[in-house]
């Protein structure tokens, strides 16, 4: 075997943390990893947040984000240990030999400069190509990556193209200087599934055509299985398992890898709909000062003690529907019946009983809690407000609720900052539950969480539903989550419900075009899935 392009030996990475009420101290985030990457191959780095995968990826550019330091070990690129040289040597490497594709292209493009200026900047300032040559190369890449109007898209500003297009521009930016290695850091995580599949296919094709090697970082095993030759599983800064895609997906050895492979395998029997507890009829809504309806004639029913999943891409109107039902956005037309009465359209005029019985849980648990209140105060607030509880009685109920969310009353005096992401979301669930609601609106409550943690939250929600007989309106863009939790499903697209019914009805053919596109775009943990889907789609469009 020839000399590897990238060789990492005993890499240890540390960081200095500055806790608010303690002295700054150093922590270790990567505890010595080894791997190699041959020319033209793709290695997937997979793990949950905090596993150190981005940190390891950036080490290939000799870069530590924030206070991160590469403390020990060797990183060999093209036969040089890049950690031995100074910053000047690293600058020659960055943007020339090794480039980087960030998770959020929207944030990673400079809003004040044209796309073309940014795409060719590294090539030109590194002296690899002249400006004209680099621009010609960029236009070729735009074309190859399937961007519309490849000759002129470069003269636009980042805010003038869509998120999926910008992510492809970012890929062009990384490929333009003809590097030997590209680090892809969750390049499709921020995209809708139907966009993700196109970007994924474009990236894969570009890697194949240019013969560049890549580190592909993601938390989604199904995605990494489509683009990688080998996969390394990381957990808490340690390597758990390292092997070919086939070995990891089909024959995982370690328990942790097995858990990652089998994630979202919750088996939930759907219940048959009954007399609805909430029934929204012909809702039409628009935001103040805009000229377009964001919801068109939306009608849904939710049965008591059951879950209606509302699924759709960003901008489809799912969250707006939740705002209408909670009264935060009074609708232009339509009405909402809840527990046998008609709700007033705006939240301030609703009775305390209406407010109590309809609770909400949000995507971002950490901004949905006051950081200066303890868990006890946060959960205790609805107990005081709705039931007038005080003193010992309140404390007992808080302890009960903490028990219900599987955390225990040891957390009662903790602050949100002292909790993990999953624990924060559990506290938010307890706060909603404290009001003894009949319906909880869950707005993307697992989207910000790692798959295993999200699984735990979904199981908890299902258990609570059984015990408390509470109904959920579950808003999500993730079809795996829908399968795990829903009794009924409403598929939304551009403000309309395009498909609606029980889970088994909605998820079985014949499909309408949009649902078909949505379902077929969800990555599956199978090697070659991506090629199959693309081939099928090409055949279909050729047939049409």
């Amino acid at each position, binding site marked *: 075997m020839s000399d590897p392009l990238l060789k990492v030996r005993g890499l240890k990475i540390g960081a200095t943390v500055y806790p608010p009420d303690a002295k700054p101290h150093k922590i270790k985030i990567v505890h010595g990893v080894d791997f190699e990457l041959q020319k033209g191959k793709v290695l997937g780095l997979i793990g949950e947040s905090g596993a150190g995968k981005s940190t390891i990826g950036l080490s290939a550019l000799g870069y530590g984000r924030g206070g991160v330091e590469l403390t020990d070990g060797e990183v060999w690129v093209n036969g040089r240990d890049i950690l031995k040289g100074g910053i000047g040597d690293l*600058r020659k490497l960055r943007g020339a030999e090794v480039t980087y594709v*960030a998770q959020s292209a929207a*944030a990673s493009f400079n809003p004040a400069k044209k796309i073309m200026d940014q795409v060719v900047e*590294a090539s030109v300032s590194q002296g690899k190509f002249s400006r004209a040559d680099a621009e010609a190369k960029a236009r070729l890449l735009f074309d190859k990556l399937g961007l519309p109007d490849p000759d002129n898209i470069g003269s636009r500003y980042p*805010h003038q193209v869509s998120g999926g297009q910008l992510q492809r521009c970012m890929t062009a*930016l990384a490929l333009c200087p003809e590097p030997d290695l590209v680090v892809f850091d969750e390049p499709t995580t921020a995209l809708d599934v139907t966009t993700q599949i196109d970007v994924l296919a474009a990236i894969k094709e570009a890697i194949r055509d240019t013969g560049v090697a890549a580190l592909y970082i993601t938390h989604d095993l199904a995605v990494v299985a489509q683009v990688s030759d080998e996969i390394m599983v990381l957990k808490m800064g340690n390597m758990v398992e390292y092997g070919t895609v086939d070995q990891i997906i089909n024959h995982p050895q370690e328990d942790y890898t097995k858990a990652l492979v089998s994630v979202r395998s919750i088996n939930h029997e759907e219940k048959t709909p009954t007399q609805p507890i909430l029934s929204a009829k012909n809702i039409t809504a628009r935001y103040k000062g805009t000229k377009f309806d964001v919801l068109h004639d939306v009608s849904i029913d939710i049965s008591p003690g059951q879950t209606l999943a509302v699924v759709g891409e960003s901008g489809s109107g799912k969250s707006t529907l939740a705002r209408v039902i909670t009264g935060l956005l009074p609708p232009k037309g339509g009405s909402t019946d809840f527990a046998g009465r008609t709700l007033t359209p705006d939240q301030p005029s609703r009775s305390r009983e209406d407010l109590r019985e309809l609770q909400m849980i949000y995507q971002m648990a950490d901004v949905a809690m006051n950081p200066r209140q303890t868990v006890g105060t946060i959960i205790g607030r609805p107990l005081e407000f709705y039931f007038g509880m005080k003193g010992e009685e309140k404390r007992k109920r808080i302890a009960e609720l903490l028990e219900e969310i599987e955390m225990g009353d040891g957390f009662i005096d903790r602050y949100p900052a002292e909790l993990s992401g999953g624990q924060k979301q559990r506290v938010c669930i307890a706060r909603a539950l404290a009001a003894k609601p009949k319906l909880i609106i869950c707005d993307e409550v697992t989207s910000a969480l790692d798959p295993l943690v999200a699984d735990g939250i979904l199981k908890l929600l299902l258990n609570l539903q059984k015990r408390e007989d509470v109904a959920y309106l579950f808003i999500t863009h993730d079809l795996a989550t829908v399968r795990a939790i829903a009794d009924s499903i409403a598929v939304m697209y551009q403000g309309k419900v395009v498909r609606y019914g029980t889970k088994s009805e909605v998820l079985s053919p014949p499909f309408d075009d949009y649902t078909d596109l949505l379902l077929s775009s969800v990555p599956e943990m199978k090697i070659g899935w991506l090629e199959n889907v693309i081939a099928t789609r090409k055949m279909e469009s050729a047939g049409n």
Partner: protein
Amino acid sequence: MHPILKLVSQRLALGLLLLLAASALIFVGTQILPGDVAQSILGQSATPEALANLRKDLGLNEPALSRYFSWLGGAIQGDLGTALTNGQDIATSMGKRLGNTLFLAFWAAVVSVPLAIFLGLVAVRYKDRWPDKMISAVTLTSISIPEFLIGYVLMYFVGVKLGWAPSVAMINDSMSLGQKLHAIALPVTVLTLVVLAHMMRMTRAAILNVMQSAYIETAELKGLSSFQVISRHAFPNAIAPIVNVVMLNLAYLVVGVVVVEVVFVYPGMGQYLVDHVAKRDVPVVQACGLVFAAVYILLNMVADIVSILANPRLRHPK
């Protein structure tokens, strides 16, 4: 209509409205002072008959509202009335003074704005290291010392002891540009020291804020040098807050130079205003107030418009 055009015309209209409100405030402010113009002209010992006659001549018996509108109407046409003390046309005598003040402010701005931004960039580049700390310390010290004190200290050492620049900044039309610049060297230095800290610190803060953005990391990972990252990628996104504080300081250079002009006996608006306040020459005070207000509003309006133009989302809508 292009959104930029709409926003800019909104700002212009708001500026005019604000100027109108300021003119009303100035007029009301001078009206509620005890005594009136007739009293000030004739002095304490004037007979009631003489006062009544003069009031009639000056139109002071008209209702305040109609006097305000005739004053405003005159001001719009460039007629600011005549000074009570010497009977000269205010617009003519103020025009030259204003020119001198703008001359001083212009050169102070030419020195201080690029210097402040450059020092801000250097402070960001060497954040928390000695150049940053030294720049902060020096500029903060200079802003903390009252400007008249800096003025007198410079006058003593640079003007009197070293003899590098005249300690009295007299200029007139017969001087060449070089002579004029030499004459105003000391007041320009004082003004620069006074406004530097504010602009430099805002530049530093605005750029540091931008330096947290993900696109700065992208730029660093392209292998650009620190200075390229700051000047090409951070600075263009920090223009709006910087322009705002620059304009506030430019306005200060015009409106707030009173003390410095008096210290250096510079024949500008400040001197003129102070002289006539001392003599209770109300029409001159009103006229100066109006001009200062106009300069202030104009510069802040320019800041607003530049901030709007600096935003690519507004310049290039989808």
